[in-house]
């Protein structure tokens, strides 16, 4: 009996395999369609992964990956023991952790607030305005920051009324993170609320009715009806954000950098750019980049595990 089943199982596997092959032959055109995307991804996403290799070399573009000298972990030790390491690592972590803590709840709160507006027209107009800053480029946003926060700019004309002296917002390291995070919320919170607003539109009206019959107050309705609906979205977005903690927006930090605010604004991505591309120290830059990627992956896994524990086994990986 047992042997028979095994034999049957083998036969079925064989059948399945040949079935798959015939399917592939019959539908070869689908595989042809996949080719451009696969090739593009292989070339521009997979080939650069040899960066992992040059981080352990003294890479020279002339000698190439195969001819360059191997140096082991030398570049990593060099980065970890460099006098700036503590500062840069600290800046990267702080900027993104603070950004996450301050920025994550805002779109949720906005969505809940907008959801209480019953007039469709008013709701639409509010959304239209709150989404708008998302369409302004990061160059323009930072340009506006420089203009509006300039020592002789509008914000400082109010500041001087109270203190008598302007504040040099863009050149003082202690203001960098606040400006970075608040302007980020100004630009992105409205747009990020779309996903939550959409989820709220799917709330089962029966739930509202039931809550009403039970005499639930507004806050109770938010707590017991609306927040549970938002929870799955919140979980996914939180894990993704936490996993991207070390890949904090390079472009904006780079544009906001001035020689004076570097003690707070120099982060790993901007450092990689300067070391790797401006100073052409390719291997050192790659090593720092790899260090960042590894920390990101570790964070993603840690956060995912914690959330899974708290959330009855539901994570994203």
């Amino acid at each position: 009996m047992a042997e028979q089943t095994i034999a049957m199982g083998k036969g079925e596997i064989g059948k399945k395999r040949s079935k798959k092959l015939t399917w592939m032959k019959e539908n070869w055109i689908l595989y042809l369609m996949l080719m451009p995307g696969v090739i593009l991804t292989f070339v521009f996403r997979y080939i650069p992964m040899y960066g992992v290799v040059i981080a352990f070399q003294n890479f020279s573009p002339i000698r190439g990956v195969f001819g360059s000298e191997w140096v082991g972990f030398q570049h990593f030790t060099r980065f970890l023991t460099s006098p700036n390491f503590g500062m840069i690592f600290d800046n990267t972590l702080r900027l993104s952790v603070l950004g996450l803590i301050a920025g994550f709840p805002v779109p949720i709160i906005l969505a809940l607030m907008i959801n209480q507006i019953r007039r469709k027209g008013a709701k639409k107009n509010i959304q239209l305005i709150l989404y708008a800053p998302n369409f302004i480029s990061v160059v323009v946003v930072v340009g506006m920051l420089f203009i509006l926060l300039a020592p002789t700019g509008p914000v400082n004309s109010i500041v001087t009324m109270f203190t008598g002296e302007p504040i040099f917002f863009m050149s003082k390291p202690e203001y960098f993170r606040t400006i970075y995070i608040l302007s980020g919320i100004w630009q992105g919170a409205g747009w990020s609320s779309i996903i939550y607003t959409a989820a709220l539109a799917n709330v089962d009206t029966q739930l509202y009715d039931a809550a009403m019959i039970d005499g639930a107050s507004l806050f109770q309705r938010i707590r017991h009806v609306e927040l549970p609906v938002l929870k799955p979205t919140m979980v996914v977005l939180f894990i993704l954000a936490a996993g991207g903690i070390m890949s904090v927006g390079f472009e904006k930090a780079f544009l906001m950098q001035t020689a004076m605010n570097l003690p707070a604004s120099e982060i790993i991505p901007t450092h990689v750019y300067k070391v790797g591309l401006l100073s052409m120290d390719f291997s050192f830059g790659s090593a720092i980049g790899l260090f960042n990627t590894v920390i990101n992956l570790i964070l993603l896994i840690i956060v995912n595990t914690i959330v899974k524990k708290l959330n009855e086994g539901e994570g994203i990986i």
Partner: protein
Amino acid sequence: MHYTKIDKTLLIVNKLVLVMIVLITLLPLIYVLLASFLEPGTLLTGGITDIKASDFTLDGYRRVLQDSTIIRGFINSFIYSTLFAVLTVVFTVLTAYPLSVNGFVGKKIVMTFFLITMFIGGGLIPTYLLIKDLGMLNTVWAIVLPGALGVFNIILAKTYFQGIPKELSEAAQMDGASHFQIFIKIILPLAKPIMFVLALFAFVGQWNSFFDAMIYLDDPTMRPLQLVLRSILIQNEVQPGMINDQAAMIEMNRIAQMIQYATIVISSLPLLVMYPFFQKYFEKGVIVGSLK
């Protein structure tokens, strides 16, 4: 819906706070817009009521529109963004369709192949070296090709294709149509909205980006708008040593300020004016993408 007295008060507070948030969102934009039509410093020295007719000027706009680097930046950005949008749509639909077909053999492997790139990447420097080795430095391709296929977009399009009723393609299959014929004749016409969404996102993303152009393009005549803006808005280092005359320096500052305000308005206005018309498409993109 039933509201208690406290709830009604809360709802009013909610409305007031939302109005305030809307005002805070608009304030910087309105300030820049207003300042772009005024002599520099007008808004700093007095209130809005103090503005005189003589304070109005279009000098900033005149200078910006005469500037060939900005015009060229607009043209370059338009070319790059359009090309990028077209490539994005083509690569995305071609990749997403096979993955949306029921019973596609190897779906898991192919999806994993794409998903991995979301979490692991070579990073900035190896990518730069690759572009250089491929001889793509200082070409449009360095800007539009590497990012043309995103994992998020594949998922977006795949989800949309899967939502198209299977009966349509099954009926065509009965009639002997190949998958490619089904794709061209049935799926694509029905997928116009999602292709439009993909194109919009790609266009706006490319229009507003500067980084790839900064590292891959050396030729100043190839610079996209955002790079031109960067030099005007952020790198405006006025070198005092070059100007001995105090009056000339003050005049230069005045002009620089007017140009900055006018450039912000001119460069941001096209998207800000157009986006409300496309708002539902943008929203659709975000929402479909989140369903996964």
